[in-house]
């Protein structure tokens, strides 16, 4: 157990997760008799307070403070000791501020969005409890608090996706999300087991301190005859967890379906916070990942494939939320590539800017959906800018940020990732990633503006019946949009110029020693030292402009081009529209075979073989037939019995005599 090191107020730190938790408990248990207004005041108030405290802690940490300490021993057995404690450093506070600020905006927004829903207080209880879990995840000081938060956010994600439990699709999506996440958690759990096995502790400080020595000792383990470094095994297993939670290939299938949940949670959980937990985890564990080239390469490959593939799917989707959802998968891929090329600070920077502009995109989309009465099909929208100017402008800002147009937030962080990938030389792996990310930039700009133009420009295709209903959302929804728009606009500039995130001269810039990068890996340092042709440095920008222009040509006004293009390549179009057929594939290779196997084991092995075959056929029948034979011996004739007795006595005597 490490010593408590603190220059921060423990009480303040504890209050940050405790406030949302208490609010959630109040809203959850007493929501049924509290008025709507009381519920949302309690929960929103608590989360806003947590956000203010987080900002305060952020400022203190920015000025050099930190915290490390345990509060209580969760369990102890033999050498296995796990405590509940916190570790507050720049990485933690960056996450804390992101989580609480977005959560506070979402809480406010929800007041308008969920107004009149029968599950109003339940919803607030869930999102506050989610905020608590997410804070535990980022603030914990060991692998178990991480795992606790990890599972708890998964639970609330499940509950919130299935929030409208009357809808079959929502229930299905919730189940899918939970199970697919559990596949990731399986890997995570094994990673944690391996950490304890090899390091004898699960405490971050102790594990990180021991890693260098551990690597030089050169532990290996063989997996099906394949020898691998223990550190690689640990990192890969943990990364499986990140793949699940952050919607990366091949476990990305749950994230687009999670859009069945109410839109505020899509913004909070499935864009800004929970899905970024995987990126956070890789960055948090950078002192381990740095020592495994294989694991880093795996992170890059998975991230690059996801970034590219989900962007292609996003090109043709017609559900406004699904476009943004695929975009989320894709952007998370960018963050993973950043971590994989050891530009962790760039990855976390993109995580922060993305949290603002993506939650803004979602909330603006929610505002649109709210206006057009729960229709999510962008083919039935158009010209909405006339009715909802604030939503229009804020979404425009978010779209520019996502596309990577300077000076909006996404430009700074995405550009940094692409440049870092360009200079980090890892053979074909980094080459592949570089081109995947570059083409991704073009596609991102295209699908974002496709969605944007189809929604707000183009021709008016809104169902005439709901025309009279069209209106701008109430203030309680538009104010959070405006707050987030500030973030979507300025968080990039702020990160670069105030926090000095990209400065390689100070180690990891703002993040100091909370991130660990080997000098030989550091791409940001290399970027600073080497000269690069301006063409490559500005290429992402021009690609984004090209994407937007193409979307402008296709969708700003009604055009026959998109349909013509789809008709020319019908197979490709179907392939993308059906999301590369991942769901169908999984149905065929996992779901059905598992069900068949279960059915077979039950019917064939349990019932037919054990029950009917052995128990009935073997034991019961032979007992029954044996008993029937024995019964025949009970003839009722005395001489039969006497005869039997004589034989018996003889037998016994013989046995006794022989035994001596």
């Amino acid at each position, binding site marked *: 157990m490490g010593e408590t090191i603190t220059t921060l107020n423990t009480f303040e730190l504890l209050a940050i997760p405790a406030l949302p938790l208490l609010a959630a408990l109040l809203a959850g248990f007493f929501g049924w008799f509290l008025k709507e207004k009381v519920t949302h005041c309690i929960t929103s108030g608590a989360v806003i307070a947590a956000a203010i405290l987080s900002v305060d802690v952020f400022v203190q940490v920015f000025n050099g403070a930190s915290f490390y300490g345990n509060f*209580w*021993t*969760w*369990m*102890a*057995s*033999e050498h*296995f000791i796990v405590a509940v404690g916190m570790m507050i450093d720049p990485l933690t506070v960056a996450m804390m501020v992101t989580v609480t600020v977005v959560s506070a905006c979402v809480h406010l927004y929800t007041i308008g969005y969920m107004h009149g829903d029968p599950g109003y207080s339940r919803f607030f209880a869930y999102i506050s409890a989610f905020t608590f879990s997410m804070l535990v995840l980022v603030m914990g000081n060991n692998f*178990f608090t991480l*795992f*606790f938060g990890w*599972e*708890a956010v998964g*639970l609330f994600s*499940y509950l919130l996706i*299935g929030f409208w*439990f*009357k*809808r*079959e699709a929502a*229930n*299905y999506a*919730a*189940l899918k999300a*939970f*199970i697919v996440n*559990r*596949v990731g*958690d*399986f890997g995570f*759990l*094994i990673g944690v*087991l*391996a950490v*304890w*096995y090899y390091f004898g502790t699960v405490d971050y400080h102790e594990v990180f301190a021991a890693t260098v020595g551990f690597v030089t000792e050169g532990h290996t*383990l063989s997996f099906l005859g394949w020898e691998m470094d223990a550190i690689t095994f640990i990192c890969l297993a943990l990364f499986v967890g990140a793949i699940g939670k952050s919607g990366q290939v091949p476990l990305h299938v749950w994230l687009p379906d999670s859009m069945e949940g109410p839109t505020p949670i899509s913004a909070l959980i499935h864009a800004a916070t929970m899905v970024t937990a995987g990126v956070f985890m890789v960055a948090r564990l950078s002192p381990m990942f740095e020592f495994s080239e294989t694991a880093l390469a795996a992170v890059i490959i998975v991230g690059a494939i996801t970034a590219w593939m989900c962007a292609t799917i996003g090109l043709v989707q017609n559900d406004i939320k699904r476009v943004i959802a695929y975009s989320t998968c894709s952007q998370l891929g960018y963050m993973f590539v950043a971590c994989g090329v050891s530009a962790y600070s760039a990855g976390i920077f993109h995580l922060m800017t993305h949290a603002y502009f993506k939650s803004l995109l979602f909330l603006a989309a929610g505002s649109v959906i709210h206006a057009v009465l729960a229709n999510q099909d962008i083919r039935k929208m158009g010209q909405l800018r006339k009715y909802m100017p604030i939503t229009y402008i804020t979404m425009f800002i978010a779209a520019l940020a996502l596309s990577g147009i300077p000076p909006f937030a996404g430009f700074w962080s995405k550009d940094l990732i692409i440049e870092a990938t360009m200079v980090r030389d890892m053979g074909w792996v980094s080459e592949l990633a570089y081109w995947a990310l570059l083409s991704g930039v073009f596609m991102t700009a295209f699908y974002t503006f496709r969605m944007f133009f189809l929604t707000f420009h183009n021709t008016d295709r809104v169902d005439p019946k709901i025309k009279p209903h069209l209106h701008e959302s109430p203030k309680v929804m538009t104010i959070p949009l405006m707050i987030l728009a500030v973030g979507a606009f300025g968080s990039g500039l702020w990160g670069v110029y105030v926090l000095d995130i990209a400065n390689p001269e100070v180690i990891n810039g703002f993040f100091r020693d909370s991130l660990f990068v080997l000098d030989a890996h550091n791409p940001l340092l290399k970027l600073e030292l080497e000269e690069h042709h301006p063409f490559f440095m500005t290429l992402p920008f021009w690609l984004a402009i090209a994407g937007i222009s193409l979307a402008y040509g296709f969708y700003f006004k009604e055009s026959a081009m998109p349909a013509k293009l789809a008709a020319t390549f019908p197979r490709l179009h179907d392939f993308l529209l059906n999301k590369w057929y991942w769901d169908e594939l999984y149905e065929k290779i996992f779901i059905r075979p*598992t*069900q068949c*196997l*279960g*059915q077979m*084991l*039950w019917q064939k*092995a*349990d*019932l037919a073989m*054990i*029950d009917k075959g*052995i*128990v009935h056929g073997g*034991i*019961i029948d032979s007992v029954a037939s044996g008993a029937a034979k024995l019964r025949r011996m009970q003839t009722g004739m005395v001489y039969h019995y006497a005869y039997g007795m004589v034989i018996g006595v003889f037998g016994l005597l013989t046995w006794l005599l022989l035994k001596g």
Partner: protein
Amino acid sequence: MESLYNVLGFPILSLSIFLPTAGALFIWMFLKDDMAVRWAALAVSVATFIVTLPLLLFFDATTAHMQFEELHPWIKAFNINYALGVDGISMPFVVLTSLLTVICIVSAWTCIQTRVKEYMLAFLILETTLIGVFCALDVVLFYFCWEAMLIPMYLIIGVWGGKNRVYATLKFFLYTLGGSVLMLIAIMAMYFKTGGSFSVLAYMDYPFNFDWQFWIFLAFFIAFAVKVPMWPFHTWLPDAHTEAPTAGSVILAGILLKMGAYGFLRFSLPMLPDASQYFVPFMVFLSLIAIVYVSLVAMMQTDLKRLIAYSSIAHMGFVTLGTFMFTEIALEGAVFGMISHGFVAAALFLCVGVLYDRMHTREISAYGGVANVMPVFAVVMMFFAMANVALPGASSFVAEIMVLLGTFNPSSEAMLYMPFSMKWVAILAATSVILSACYTLWMVKRVLMGDLVKDEVKTLSDMNLREFSFFAPLIVLVIWLGLYPAPVLDLLHVSVAHLVDQATSSKLADAALIAQGAAAHLTGH
């Protein structure tokens, strides 16, 4: 006679064993009215629960010695004693039994309307035998309670059970009886081998040679494996569960299954360490089957109780897996898993009972959208479903993670006969993370979620206060032990460490010495 270790200086174990029977006698002789019987049975069970609480309070967690001991000669001719005592491994089960009995009696308050008196009597007598099993330090007494328990259980399923109850009871009875016969043979063998002792502690110290250990282990194995139940002796359990009345299922899942696993801990490991080590690969194999195969079977069930029964078997797979790793963490995980499963599985059966009382069907397809009309119930059931999935924060998570940690890093004795690294076993066992989520949450989806389309479901009423009252303590316990398991683990540490010591020290050297001594003795003539 050595001095007895009993800090209370008062036969508290006897009191907790016989109080239910005494109460049963009183009810049988003096009470007629159903309501009076119910209240009296409740009073007796609560009194028993209160009597068992000092066990927790005055338990000395710093020693592995048996505590609250009692010893009286019973049948002197055969050296059979009435010997009682508990250590950290058995004591929690005594308290668990007395707690679950109270819950059983409350849960049967309205749903049992015929032969109420006999029902309550059966439960109280069952409680006596169950506590007896966990306290007995004399093998004959143990065997007596082990067998006597069958009768009330047989009656509970056979008289108050469902449509197919005769088949289920017969199967239950034959299976367990078949196992018990072998156990009796094993006990006789040990009696003669040790030169006429029935003392559990004497058996632990006696150096059996390997052949004896081998055969006795096998005989015990079948008796215990039927009870746990382990594959392929498990098919009686789903039938027994489906046909049993709710409270019967609760006691079956909560306590009866633990007797098998307890048998391994009390008999196989300490008495037969070498055979236990020899059978590790076999036990690991069966445990993995329970975790993977049975989970897959659970997934496909269409009957609620059958699903939870299979899920019970899968979770008991973790218990047997942890038992045979011979490390403190794994064994503590196994014991903790039994306690936790006692809460979670019991609560899930109670949930089914709440539904069954209203709808009189266990078919999953008959439900759907229950959350619309029974919101409080939905929250409770969701809670226990998540506990069944072993989410962190629930007691079941603590148990599972400890067993997995122990399996990842087993003692060298557990590895003596293992053909491959136990890490792969841990990884296979960890698939439970996925599988348990599949069957539990799919069930939740089909029962609780969805719109109200079925007319029968539309008229359901939410849980009443009585029903909530028996869930409340279970919820508190599951969360408390999940967030702060230390107090219970503290009770286990020393006893489990002692058990690990027993299970990892070979008896063969001593056995060889004895054999040589015997040979010298023979040649001397």
